[in-house]
């Protein structure tokens, strides 16, 4: 099978940073003595050179799919082997110069695969998304506070005006058009939405407010045109947004 050998050899010595370098003893393939070679690990490729100064590698071991094991050797201490799963696979027997070097190489080689790298990248990608999502929802929480304060303001001003109508108990169905509702009485006049939220603490969402019909633009985004002072609409709109934000926040815990 052909391989773009010249370019692969170039990869070994080009200026991309190696992941590990050092001397190791490698058992020969024909001549079964151990030969001292200079090794360069880059990604999932383990190159070996005759000397540290050699410009061309003697060979390369593609590490994808390999396992690395410590092994017993009669002649060498600190021996380990690079093994593969396929039929009649080669076993590369290696030996380091001391215990620390052996452990360090075994660790590096067993994590050198592209697959392992891909796993780590995916995990960090996921973590970053999580962190960014948390940042977004804490932004939402501060918006929540802002709305609560606005709603308190609205409650106070409307309690001063007289509005009567059927009282709103929890979820209520809305029909087309305006329906007035008296806000449930709360001792210190603190935001009604807090009361609503605690009733819906089990995560039940309020019925969505039906779309407004034949209004300016018909969008739910601006439910109240400055002139109407329709508190129920304002209340419903903020209540929905607040409930949604709360659910989002709860889910991110």
């Amino acid at each position, binding site marked *: *099978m052909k391989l773009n050998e010249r370019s692969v050899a170039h990869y070994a010595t080009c200026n991309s940073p190696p*992941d590990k370098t050092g001397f190791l003893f490698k058992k020969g393939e024909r001549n079964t003595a151990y030969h001292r070679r200079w090794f360069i690990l880059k*990604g999932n490729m383990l190159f070996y050179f005759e000397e540290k100064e050699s410009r061309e590698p003697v060979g390369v071991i593609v590490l994808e799919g390999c396992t690395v094991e410590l092994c017993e050797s009669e002649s060498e201490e600190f021996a380990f082997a690079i093994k593969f799963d*396929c039929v009649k696979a*080669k076993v590369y027997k290696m030996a380091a110069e001391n215990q620390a070097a052996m452990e360090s190489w075994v660790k590096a080689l067993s*994590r050198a695969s592209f697959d392992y790298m891909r796993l*780590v990248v995916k995990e960090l*990608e996921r973590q970053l998304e999580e962190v960014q999502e948390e940042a977004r929802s804490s932004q939402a929480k501060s918006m929540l506070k802002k709305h609560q304060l606005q709603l308190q303001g609205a409650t106070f001003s409307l309690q001063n005006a007289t509005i009567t109508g059927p009282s709103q108990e929890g979820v209520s169905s809305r029909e087309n058009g305006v329906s007035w509702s008296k806000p449930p009485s709360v001792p210190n006049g603190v935001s009604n939405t807090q009361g609503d939220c605690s009733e819906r603490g089990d995560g039940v969402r309020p019925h969505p407010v039906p779309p407004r019909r034949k209004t300016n633009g018909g969008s739910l985004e601006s439910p109240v045109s400055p002139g109407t002072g329709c508190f129920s609409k304002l209340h419903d709109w903020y209540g929905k947004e607040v409930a949604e934000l709360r659910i989002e926040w709860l889910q991110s815990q």
Partner: protein
Amino acid sequence: MRFNEKELVFLSRQPSERAAELGMRGPKKGDVVKRRVVKLIVNFLFYFRTDEDEPIGALLLEQCRVEREDDQVFSVVFLDEAERKYLFECDSQEQCVEWIDAIIKASYEFMRKNLIYYRTEIHRLTGKDPLEQYGISDETRFQVNSGLPPLPPAAT
């Protein structure tokens, strides 16, 4: 240069990121376009005769550049021999774009850059080094600039 051919052939039989029959032309003068089954597996591009199980060859996709040559044609060029182009003819523009994207992302170097970016960002946003829990925070390949010291340990 010696390499573990049997193991590479075994790799070519593993599930691929992407595989298709494409027109392929080698980099030598006089090479013509031939139909090949092309398989992208980790950072290797294997190519097979359409009726054979053993690959004719493999290209390691490190230190290479992928370019759009035409509507449906892309090329792979290795930085050490930029005049030699491997050409690949696709069946559609969409397929061509997808292959280019897949090959760009298929290098170890590309993944390393992403990892370093994510690591730095997470550290910036949380003050914690996300690699510490895996015990790999001081590996050379994960450093922002090889040679510079690793990120400081998380404050406790």
